[in-house]
């Protein structure tokens, strides 16, 4: 009776022990903290609300006050199956999460660095800015609520630095001009150091005159 019980449980116990051993082994494997390389291959744009005290990064709008036009620009790498991220995910899958010695979050560094950011208006903005004009110089980078705006070279610096948690970077550009039209629309062009370009056209924005 005892012998048959031993035989019955021996195999599952050995299998469980092997699984436990594998998970324990990978739990003790140190993470690679170097940022993963990525390639920006997608550009998307939308409008966000900047009419209140603080910029609402997550509140996308289709209507804006004439002096509060703000564009959210997202550059991302939509490709999947990175060897390094896959191996990291695999390691997480076969290890005890709670027994990992450190809390590791992946970081990403763009391989194709942004060299230029250009904005063109598709509608006349005011008497001195016509449809089709380059309005890059009228846009500023909103880096944070409690700091002043910066010129676009700071925005490019932000796009080129190591990104945390995800393979994308989102920035907000604000227009430092009053829009005297009832509608606004812009075309944004991101030029990379290797000469590649990504272009995105914003939706048409309805302007409320103050």
């Amino acid at each position, binding site marked *: 009776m005892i012998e048959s019980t031993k035989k019955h449980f021996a195999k599952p116990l050995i299998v469980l022990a092997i699984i436990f051993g594998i998970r324990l082994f990978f739990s003790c494997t140190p993470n690679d903290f170097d940022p993963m390389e990525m390639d920006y291959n997608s550009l998307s744009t939308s409008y966000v609300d900047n009419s209140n005290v*603080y910029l609402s990064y997550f509140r996308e709008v289709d209507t804006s006050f004439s002096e509060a036009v703000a564009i959210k620009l997202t550059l991302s790498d939509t490709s999947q199956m990175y060897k390094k991220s896959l191996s990291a995910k695999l390691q997480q899958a076969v290890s005890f999460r709670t027994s990992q010695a450190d809390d590791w979050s992946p970081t990403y560094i763009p391989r194709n660095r942004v060299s230029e950011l250009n904005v063109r208006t598709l509608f006349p903005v005011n008497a001195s800015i016509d449809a089709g004009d380059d309005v890059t110089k009228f846009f500023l980078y909103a880096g944070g609520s*409690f700091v*002043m*705006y910066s010129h676009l070279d700071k925005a490019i610096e932000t796009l080129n630095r190591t990104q945390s948690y995800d393979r994308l970077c989102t920035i907000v550009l604000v227009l430092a001009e009053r829009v005297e039209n009832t509608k606004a629309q812009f075309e944004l062009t991101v030029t990379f150091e290797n000469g590649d370009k990504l272009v995105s056209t914003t939706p048409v924005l309805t302007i409320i005159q103050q």
Partner: protein
Amino acid sequence: MKQLILSIILFSGMSLMAQDQLLRNQIVSLSVGVSEHSIEKFSASDKLDFMNYTNEYDGNFDFILIKLAYSFEFSKNMSADVELIMLDDIIPDNFDMKINYSFQPWLGIGAGTMLHKNWISSFEEFHKQTMPDYHLLDENSKYFVNYDLGFYLSPFVQIIDNEFIKLDVACDLGVSAFMKYETDFVLKKKLSNEKMRYLYNTLSVYQPFIQPRLYIKIKAFELKKASLGFLFNTQYYYANRSINYSRSIQRWTAENEIAEKIEPSKHLFTKFSLNLGMFVRW
């Protein structure tokens, strides 16, 4: 370790014994009192005036004072006074120190330094009131401790100096300056992208003051070589003061900046204080 501690104690004891021989007429006193501040306030202009936001309170007295003082004579004609002053917050960060020289037993002059603090608070109200079209990004009430460092000469006369009562009258004539402070405000125009930043750097500018003082000491008991008594001190500070500063206004970006030096009007600033306490002289 024990030897080190013993050495320190012995050394300290020896130095105290040596001081006993050098220092005469030593007095330690503890007194409590009150202080009433009065600051002339002006109506708001287009420039921030920090003096308008210097704390003073309605009622008879603004602050409670606790003074711990030590004075001693270290030569025939010279003496020194050291006074540590605490306000309601019980932080001993105010002082008054001077060295006195007596030409005659009843006449002399002192030279001293003092550090007194004031509180300047809620000055963000200036921007709220003068720029109603703008949001203040940090709406928290701002305040800072404004230390006033002064240097003075103080001629004094001993009106009464007998075994029981000693009455001195002095008048400080000096200059004092508020110490530097830096603050900023970020503002955003309502329904607009426009941002502005106001940076203030207060300047340390010495301005004259006058401060008559009255000291009364009454001996009450005598115990061997020491005597114990009561003291009453009062003083009245009078000055015309301003807090000058440099102001930078940034518009949209930090690079787009206009800087200028601001000298607000001078405010009449008076402080009346009196304190009562006990002293021990040996």
